[in-house]
């Protein structure tokens, strides 16, 4: 199947475009702020930033309906913001404070929201894939018409449990969209050095799962593909694979020396394929917004992120009693 190209004249409203612009910008500014707080020592441990991949979650969230579920790996800040979780609660979890989504006990990699149907935030590469199929299993058991977005990376795509899951998801026609966020590097190992095939979605064919490649730097292409995948699942036809080609600008985690790729490669992606710049261009050239309009959005987002950062610093550390709670329900 061919890569989806953005059509020259997208059939999309100004409000929609502005929404995508705002959502993607929120993720980017949030992540930049997280990087800054990490540098200041306010965030510790592992912190995996989503910068560059924003169009993936924003596009797919645009294809989701209320009640649909999502689950992902440890690079999860973008997914949480895109599904409507509060930036302050997410940032406060990064700083390990009581106002965080897990009361400071989960950290960057482990957050959940029942209200937003966000099921984490999982730190073991690939483990979220059977879990995501399990969420879909529950929906099918209850026959409630819901769909689960199960995100994983090109690195996780080499875990055996992914294929155990593909088999059962196809066998049992589970309503799950497997989203392979292919950012081309599994930590520091380029896809060509770790993966026997160029396109990973092909592997679904062995299990009878249809799939396609999506331009993950183009939010409209992602949304369109997402709608098709969701319709397939909701029609009871079983799982669908979207291999979304994307790119992470920052290191794998904060302590990544980035020796496995050149600065020029990163720069080229930023200059030629940036997902936010693409929407910005569409807004301006389509006369959907003026520079001033966009500046106003920038400022609005900056305020939201600054507020989240302030909250994450002001929220107290969890009380010592919290060490001993939430072990058993």
């Amino acid at each position, binding site marked *: 199947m061919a890569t989806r190209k953005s059509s020259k004249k997208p059939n999309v409203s100004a409000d929609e475009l502005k929404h995508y612009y705002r959502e993607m910008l929120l993720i980017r500014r949030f992540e*930049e*702020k997280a990087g*800054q707080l*990490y*540098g*200041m*020592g*306010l965030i*510790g*441990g592992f912190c995996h930033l989503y910068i560059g991949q924003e169009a993936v979650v924003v596009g797919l969230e645009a294809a989701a309906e209320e009640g649909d*579920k999502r*689950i992902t790996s440890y690079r999860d800040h973008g997914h949480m913001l895109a599904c409507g979780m509060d930036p302050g609660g997410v940032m406060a979890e990064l700083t390990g404070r009581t106002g*965080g*989504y*897990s*009361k*400071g*006990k*989960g950290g960057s990699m*482990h957050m*959940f929201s*029942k209200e937003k149907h966000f*099921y*984490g*935030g*999982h730190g*073991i590469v690939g483990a979220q*894939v*059977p*879990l*995501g*199929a*399990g*969420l*879909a*299993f*529950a*929906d099918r*058991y209850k026959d409630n018409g819901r769909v689960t977005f199960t995100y994983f990376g090109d690195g996780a795509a080499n875990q*055996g*449990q992914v294929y*155990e*899951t593909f088999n*059962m998801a196809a*066998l049992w026609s589970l309503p799950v969209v497997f989203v392979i966020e292919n950012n081309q590097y599994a930590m520091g190992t380029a896809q060509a050095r770790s993966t026997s095939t160029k396109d990973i979605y092909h592997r679904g064919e062995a299990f009878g799962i249809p799939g396609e490649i999506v331009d993950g730097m183009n939010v409209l292409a992602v949304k369109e593909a997402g709608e098709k995948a969701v319709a397939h699942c909701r029609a009871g036809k079983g799982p669908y694979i979207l291999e979304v080609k994307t790119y992470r600008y920052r290191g794998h985690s*904060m*302590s*990544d*020396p*980035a020796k496995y790729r050149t*600065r020029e490669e990163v720069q080229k992606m*930023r200059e030629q394929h940036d997902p936010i710049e693409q929407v910005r261009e569409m807004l301006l050239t389509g006369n959907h917004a003026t520079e001033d309009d966009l500046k106003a959005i920038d400022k609005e987002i900056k305020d939201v992120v600054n507020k989240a950062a302030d909250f994450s610093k002001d929220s107290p*550390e969890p009380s*010592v*009693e919290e*060490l001993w709670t*939430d*072990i*058993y*329900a």
Partner: protein
Amino acid sequence: MATEILMPALSPTMEEGTLAKWLVKEGDTVNSGDILAEIETDKATMEFEAVDEGIVGKILIGEGTEGVKVNTPIAILVEEGESADDLPEPKSAPEDSGDKAARDTSEPAAAATEAAPAAPKVDQSPDWPADAQMKQQTVREALRDAMAEEMRSDEDVYLMGEEVAEYQGAYKVSQGLLDEFGARRVIDTPITEHGFAGIAVGSAMAGLRPIVEFMTFNFAMQAIDQIINSAAKTLYMSGGQMGCPIVFRGPNGAAARVAAQHSQDYAAWYMQIPGLKVAMPYSAADAKGLLKSAIRDPNPVIFLENEILYGRSFDVPQIDDLAIPFGKARIWREGSDVTIVSFGIGMQYALEAADKLAEDGISAEVIDLRTLRPMDTGAIINSVMKTNRLVTVEEGWPQGSVGSYISSVVMQEAFDYLDAPVINCTGKDVPMPYAANLEKLALVTTDEVIAAVKQVTYR
């Protein structure tokens, strides 16, 4: 307003680094994402990016400077028309959160080692009414009845595993369930433990109450990441938001002549994990009552059965709802000279030994723990306060055994009551051999339990 650029922490453990190279100079305009400098940590040379936009007003730390502490101001960023001197008074360095964390944890640690009261209160109420009618049932039938009863009362309970449906269970524990509940709720899986355990855990996070049968617990090692990292830890990691009500059950420990890879007791492994509950019943009544409680429990439960016990018959009370609580040991036999503590198939050796010891005039109290997490250590302490001697019995290996944990608890909480060192009777510290004579030697035996009791009673 002018802002300080601080020496960043570029890894989880970095405290200081070398400012290797500046890639900007004073007067340069920078945008967020531009590389400002190269910084050497103990592991690598890293690029340091700008977060804010502005003009580099002043460079405070020259390139080549070693040992620059994290959070030291290294440059000043100004806005158009400002000078570096506009900076307000320098901020004080943030407090060292590492020290603070260490201080905060000291309190509960102290609380945990607090001495237990002299005589712990334990629940020794009967599990069922004394006048309940009893019926002989095998452990296998009792387990099936428990599942069937819970599936009848809760539509969200389902059974999943290899050969649980059409084959009627590899060990016939799920016999008849497919007929009664249908293929939607009694689900044959492919041979793919890691995958189906993960799917079951995911479904539990979404509100179902799966029972996962492992054909044997040996195969659950394929799935142990999902059991521990996903099922046991999610409630804590989510700050109490998202739990995992699930039962993992199946035969555990040695069967007969199936050699090393199919003959391991996992009691001590799972007992170690906070977030899991662990049951290992001996009798049919306990198997039924504990499994019913396990299925209703909002937490992940490891339910360790035994192939040899499946066919054993015991009295099972015929009451409407036999649910036995976790964390409550059962005293099978009262005695005054020594306490023998066991669980699961170990009870067979413990009870046999007690019978034979009685012939020699030694009165043994035999306690069946029934659940290992939570563990009714109070019942053990109470008994040791009476008998002053303790022998533990299990089939698992000696190093890091259930018995060694019990020994440490008794040492800490009832040291003054002990008249002899605690002895742990365990399986031998070898992989299970196939040869019949060697297999017998590798398992714990009744004679070893008798010898241990004689040793602690100085007979």
